């Protein structure tokens, strides 16, 4: 019994080491003075400073935030309405399954499809096309998160609200939306996170100009000249940020289930 338990703990430790070892190395190296990945030469914030002075990085972060915010807004609105509609109409499993296809379809396929489509309709490429492309898969993710929330949702509270004299609109504003709001927010956070570090689709749909380079694209461009400690610093910040968002989204979903 005790031996079995020890094995389990050991196994757990190995899995965590496998998952987080490389990440820890990266975080440590971002504070390394020398900038060489082979030797530790003391703590320094030098690379963080350099990163902040790099105009290309700053511009790409700005682009990414614009794309993430806009696509999240679109996806959260449409995804929530989609979830509510699916919940009410209950179409067949096939039709419902199609809603979630953008979630599982390989990014590269979606990227090619979107690029072909944008070209076909003669749309110019730029930040706006990345926003639309990100909204496509994010709608599916938001919808999935809100649907989970709706599964625990007692529909009779909508009737109760109407019974108490509220109109349909007031009912949506004062009962339905607040009741599912934690799910909506969790969906929005997930969408934002996914958009921030999405690379393939953004790369395909950004067009040729440097003006619409997003943050992951910028890193990809820099990495072609080798992994500099500057990139480690950038990655560490992104890591912390994503971690925070995921934690927040999980927390919201947990609190929401009474």
């Amino acid at each position, binding site marked *: 019994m005790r031996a079995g338990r020890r094995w389990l703990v050991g196994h757990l430790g190995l899995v965590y080491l496998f998952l987080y070892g490389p990440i820890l190395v990266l975080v440590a190296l971002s504070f390394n003075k020398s900038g060489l990945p082979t030797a530790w030469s003391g703590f320094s914030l030098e690379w963080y400073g350099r990163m902040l002075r790099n105009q290309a990085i700053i511009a790409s972060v700005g682009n990414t935030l614009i794309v993430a915010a806009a696509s999240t807004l679109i996806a959260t609105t449409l995804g929530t309405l989609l979830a509510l509609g699916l919940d009410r109409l209950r179409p067949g499993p096939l039709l419902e399954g199609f809603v979630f296809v953008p979630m599982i379809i390989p990014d590269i396929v979606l990227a090619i499809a979107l690029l072909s489509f944008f070209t076909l309709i003669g749309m110019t490429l730029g930040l706006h096309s990345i926003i639309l492309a990100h909204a496509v898969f994010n709608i599916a993710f938001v919808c999935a998160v809100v649907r989970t929330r709706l599964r625990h949702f*007692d529909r009779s*509270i909508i009737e109760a609200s109407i*019974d108490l*004299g509220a109109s349909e609109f007031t009912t949506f504003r004062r009962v339905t939306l607040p009741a599912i709001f934690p799910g909506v927010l969790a969906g929005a956070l997930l969408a934002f996170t996914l958009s921030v570090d999405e690379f393939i689709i953004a790369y395909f749909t950004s067009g040729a100009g440097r003006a619409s380079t997003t943050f992951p694209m910028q890193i990809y461009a820099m990495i072609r000249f080798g992994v500099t400690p500057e990139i480690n610093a950038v990655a560490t910040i992104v890591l912390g940020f994503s971690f925070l968002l995921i934690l927040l989204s999980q927390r919201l979903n947990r609190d929401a289930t009474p």
Partner: protein
Amino acid sequence: MTSETKTVVEIVGATKRFGAVTAVDDLSLAIRENEFFALLGPSGCGKTTLLRMIAGFERPDAGRILLDGRDITDLRPNRRPINMMFQSYALFPHLSVHGNVAYGLEMEGVRGAELKRRVEEALAMVRLEDFARRRPHLLSGGQRQRVALARALVKRPRLLLLDEPLAALDKKLRTQMQLELKRLQHETGITFLVVTHDQEEALAMADRIALLNAGRIAQLGTPRALYERPASRFVADFIGVMNFFEGRLTSAAAGVAEIEVEGLGRLRGDAGGSGGSDGGLPGSAPVVGAAATLAVRPERVRLSLEPPQESLPNGLSGVVLDITYLGQDLMVHVGLAGGRAPLIARLGAGSEVAAALAEGAVVWCRWAAEDARILME
């Protein structure tokens, strides 16, 4: 009760179909002012559909619904002065108890001090003053139900609809809430319409009961009328425990009818018609020779260990198969001739006969003709 009985809600020939199923079938019903009315029936009898039609959540395919004489069939539910207590209580999870109760008043435009006063009044009525700030998920089942009640009552509706109000509570709490509901109905003077599948609940609470079967009213009357004068085999079977004897009608005269039961001889029962609104035998015309059923309640059956001195009607002999102790009473199953279902008799546990009863003993069962009921098929 005074003779001044104004009708609050009238349902005129209402019909509702869901696909091939007719949930409510050309049903008419009038509910009186200040009455505690129960819609009783097995699941699928149409009682909930009827309730939802009155609330406005279902539209009848045919027929009208009148409130105080005004046609409200096409009025949306949020415009009807009718409120409902949902089976799941349907409390708003993101609002406090106070917020839940205030919601309906806010929709009416009640604000400020008056809002506060009326919410507090309603919470006091259901004894939840101390829970105003709590969220619903922190309340017990009974407390949640009282919030739901307060939320509906605070709007002072013309009619309060209650959908299976006690179904989610445990037995002890249920009995307590039955009294509570009656008290609230009495205090507020609001007409209550409760839907239930539990006949005991309906008998205990309601002034009048409509027993529904397959979308129609099987019988409408006071609890006593339904229990003691069931109009059909369905009613007799649904309400309480009943012994049935199937046979053929041999005579029906002067309030007493007689049927011939194979293997048991002739049994007598009340043919109705003697004082009371129900005239004569229920069901089809009482033709001699037609199939008929005699129904008698277990508590009306008298048991004795000695054969009767004289030959009285309704005397049957049998063997005690089983004695169930129910505390105050004993439930005795008596096996009769002819391999039929055992006769059930209920008698006080403290009675002389009860003390002498034993399984396997031979007993004589009888009942007075007026205690049994003859039902035509």
